[in-house]
């Protein structure tokens, strides 16, 4: 019985699914067109399209153009074919950055899909105290990366609060080099990302949870399912679309990570430059007086393709799971 309820819930809260199933039967599409002028959708879309064209598409095309030149910021370059791309692919710094960004995305995506959902379930009660916690948990997301970067650099430094507490409790004798060791720094930056991201994704999940019918929980409860079982058999299927969305958003955001690592390393790439990420490298090569815009553009285009691959894989996995 609970299984049947699941399927029903899944169908209701997954719009794409829903639409696919119902449209052919009801013939909704043809009826819509009959009451809508052909240009109506474009009136809705004209302003967003103009903004996208001017502020994203055009600069992006410009980036593609630059990637085939040896331009610097202060000098218009000549066409050099693919030589910027081969220079990028041969650069050991790029290899380091690719590794770091990939690790970041691989670690962050599962954390951001699961932890905020648990958080959302915890506070999804209409009591005063829970609404207090809900608000409080969102505060780090509100703080923003400039401020949270400052806060956490203070907290994680050798004499910062985290080490001071551990040393005060006599758990450690030497301060933990959160900001010095290559891997610890990456791990610390992930903690800052989680700190700021939990509340953000929690809110998206709260919206999804609101769509799950309470009767499903009641049914599961009658079937004898405990909280954990309910979470697995009702909550997770009910939020499936949102989970996929967050998987996509958080893995892309994680691959693009900049602020957290930048703030924790004080703008450098960490010890020996080993904590540099793709965005940091683009930033470093593409801005400043000595900017190599051609090189940075090639790097950006390569990053663009990697993000495209991540997205395609996730869409593919989702489609597979759906079938």
């Amino acid at each position, binding site marked *: 019985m609970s299984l049947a309820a699941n399927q029903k819930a899944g169908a*209701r809260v997954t719009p794409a699914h829903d639409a696919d199933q*119902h449209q052919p039967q*009801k013939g909704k599409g043809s009826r*819509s*067109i009959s*009451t*809508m*002028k*052909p240009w*109506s*959708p474009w009136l*809705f879309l004209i*302003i*967003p*399209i103009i*903004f*996208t064209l*001017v*502020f*994203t598409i*055009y*600069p*992006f095309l410009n980036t593609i153009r630059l990637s085939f030149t040896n331009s610097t*910021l202060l000098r218009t370059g000549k066409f050099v074919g693919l030589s910027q791309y081969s220079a990028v692919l041969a650069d050991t710094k790029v290899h380091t950055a690719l590794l770091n960004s990939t690790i970041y995305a691989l670690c962050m995506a599962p954390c951001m899909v699961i932890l905020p959902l648990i*958080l959302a379930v915890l506070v999804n009660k209409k009591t005063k105290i829970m*609404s207090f*916690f*809900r*608000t*409080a*948990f969102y*505060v780090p997301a*509100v703080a*923003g990366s*400039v*401020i949270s970067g*400052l*806060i956490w650099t*203070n*907290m994680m430094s050798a004499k910062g*609060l985290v080490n*001071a*507490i551990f040393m*005060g409790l006599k758990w450690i004798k030497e301060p933990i080099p959160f900001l010095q060791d290559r891997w610890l720094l990456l791990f610390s930056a992930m903690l800052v990302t989680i*700190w700021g991201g*939990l509340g953000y994704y929690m809110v998206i999940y*709260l*919206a*999804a949870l*609101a769509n799950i019918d309470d009767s499903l929980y009641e049914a599961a409860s009658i079937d004898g399912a405990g909280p954990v079982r309910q979470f697995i058999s009702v909550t997770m299927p009910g939020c499936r679309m949102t989970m996929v969305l967050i998987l996509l958003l958080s893995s892309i955001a994680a691959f*693009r990570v900049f602020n957290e690592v930048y703030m924790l390393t004080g703008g450098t790439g960490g010890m020996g430059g080993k904590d540099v990420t793709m*965005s940091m490298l683009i930033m470093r090569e*593409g*801005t400043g007086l000595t900017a190599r*815009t051609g090189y940075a553009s090639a790097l*950006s285009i390569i*990053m*663009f393709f990697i*993000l495209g691959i991540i*997205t395609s894989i996730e869409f593919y996995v989702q489609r597979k799971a759906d079938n």
Partner: protein
Amino acid sequence: MRANRITPGTVIRYLACTVLFILLVGPIIWQVSLAFKGRGDNIYAIPPYFIPKDFTWDNFIRVFHQIPILHYALNSLIVTIINVVGNLVTATLAGYALGRLKFPGKKLVAGFIFGCMLIPGETVLVSQFLTIRGLHLNNSLLGVVLPGLCGAMNILLMMTAFASIPHELEEAAEVDGANVWQRFIHICLPQVRGTAMVVAIFSFVGAWNDFMWPLVVIGDESKYTLTIGLNKLKGAFVTDPRLIAAGAVIALIPIIIFFVAFQRYFFDGVETGGVKE
């Protein structure tokens, strides 16, 4: 009405919430403590102590003295409000068209807009600046605001929200002869208020905290936003952690007040915005 019984589940829930509260809000509260610590306090003491021994408002006074922080906050507010309104408009318009309407070329437009989510913002920074300069908007708050008025992420959120409205609602109105704009405004918009609130809060937070772009666009101090202003606190010659903590606290106050004031509508919106049958 269920009876208020204390079950182990409830205890665990509250315990977990308390631990999470310490982890998520504690660091901010620590900055507050740091901001009130005077010169007589050893800020590197082991074990650390929370209550300042040499309590002082001096750090805040120094911040106000050194930078016109209220003026910067006003600039940030202007940028933020325009950003929120702009994003609400573009995201609902595009979200509705992509989420509910069927028309030729829809997939292309969707690919076009969401494809932009994959373009790292850092990449197009200089090109964007040159575009803004071409419009003669550099060194103006409008130049800060314009490129951020149409967030693809917001469109995606609104599209998902619009798509999950039951077809029956709109079909009924359609039968009554409502055209697409009437259905958009009277039927669908009220259904997505929750998501709209989410978009508003996300835009507010994003615009309030934006750092890199204003730094590039704004040259004139009188147009600084708060994040750039705060950065100035890290003076060329002297760094004082207490001062930075005080600046962080000052910057946090308005946004936390804004959020706490609107959180009821925000979270209520999140819940009632969903479709309940």
